[in-house]
């Protein structure tokens, strides 16, 4: 398994959504699991989020959205990542969580999101998914 303490994770909250409990819970859980986690705080633009991933050289981006704007914000983030030469799934593993209906989740996965998690997801499941996604990244020898 990849050494988690050398994997950097950005947990981000895009848009005007102020629901930050889930993001904080997930950030903390990943820290407890041994990851290095950078939390951006709320009200981030897609540009800010992608710049953060770049400057922090993160391998994982976790996006938390409960506002309903996910089908606008997440595709935009994915596009900006590509523009920076960061291919979702190869250079950076992208996760989403919050209130995201199943159909939208499917759509997002097709666009390159590794996994989408809704309310009540056990934190263990999230950690396991991150572990798995990280192993599939180029920089860790996949």
């Amino acid at each position: 398994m990849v050494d988690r303490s050398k994997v950097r994770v950005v947990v981000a909250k895009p848009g005007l959504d102020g629901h930050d409990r889930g993001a904080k819970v997930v950030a903390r859980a990943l820290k407890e699991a041994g990851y290095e986690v950078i939390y951006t705080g709320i009200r981030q633009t897609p540009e800010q989020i992608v710049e953060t991933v770049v400057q922090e050289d993160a391998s994982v981006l976790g996006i938390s959205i409960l506002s309903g704007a996910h089908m606008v914000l997440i595709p935009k983030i994915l596009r900006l990542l590509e523009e920076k030469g960061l291919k979702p799934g190869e250079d950076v593993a992208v996760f989403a969580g919050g209130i995201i209906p199943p159909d939208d989740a499917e759509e997002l996965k097709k666009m390159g999101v590794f996994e989408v998690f809704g309310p009540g997801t056990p934190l263990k499941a999230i950690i396991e998914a991150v572990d798995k996604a990280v192993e599939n990244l180029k920089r860790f020898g996949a």
Partner: protein
Amino acid sequence: MAEELDGLIDLALKGDKKAIARLITLVENDEEKAKEVIQRVYPLTGKAYVVGVTGPPGSGKSTLLDKLIKLARDEGHRVGVIAVDPTSPFTGGALLGDRLRMQRHSTDPGVFIRSMATRGALGGLAKATNDAIKVLDASGYDLIFVETVGVGQIEVDIVKTADTVVLVTVPGLGDEVQAIKAGLMEVADIFAINKADREGVEMVYLELKMALEFERDKWKELGWEPPIVETTAFTLRGVRPLWEAIKRHMEYMESSGRLRERRTFRAREEVKTIIASSVAKRVEERLAEGEAKELIDEVVERKLDPYSASRIVMEKLKEDLWR
């Protein structure tokens, strides 16, 4: 691999943030790569001025930095930030929360912010902090802020890193003021009493003032007495005076020759650290070998004393060190 590294360095020197970020990861994760990176970029460094911001947990270091970055940008500086937070000794993980207070600068092309975990280092910074500063310096960031973890008394590595050290304290700390007087006092060039919107500012001011008074002769000799600035990072009150104090200290450091002195001390510390860690590594390697194990057994069995045994190992070490 060497070519890949060359490519990265070229891009970083042109200001490519992804390349700069990658280089910082390399110096953080990989000792051998760190050596290569630093050997190549070192000749291009030395242009940046490094300002350290330290102080107790939650005193407002990151919030103040956010405002200072703005003022520095207004004056045309290209600003780099290294913000250090602690690694959990139990899990090896870290939650790096400094950055979130400065996020509005993340899309500014003239600002580069990097969070860094201590990864076991105890002095308030990470082992790779100095190397990361060099990468930013070579990449054209001329003013670099370093935020330490929230520090107590013994974590004073910042003096080995920064040209100017700002100590941020707050009212209502009680015993921690004592700690500041005992240890951190020695390292501060400027004091900021943040959260001046709260009660008890005058108390802290007087305590600091008294402590400074005690060292009066020292300040006279140095030609610099640490100023005390009251700030409220929320409302910007006192932030500009703090920035002015930092600039005055920069000027003082240059004109008095103290900058050269401090950098000489730092270079010496850096060389010393590198020597000590490579020697320690060689010692471990030697002691892991069969021959050394036999020697150790002899020490256990009282056939050889520890001094003579180390003498024998040290003879061998001479060869190892030049390998």
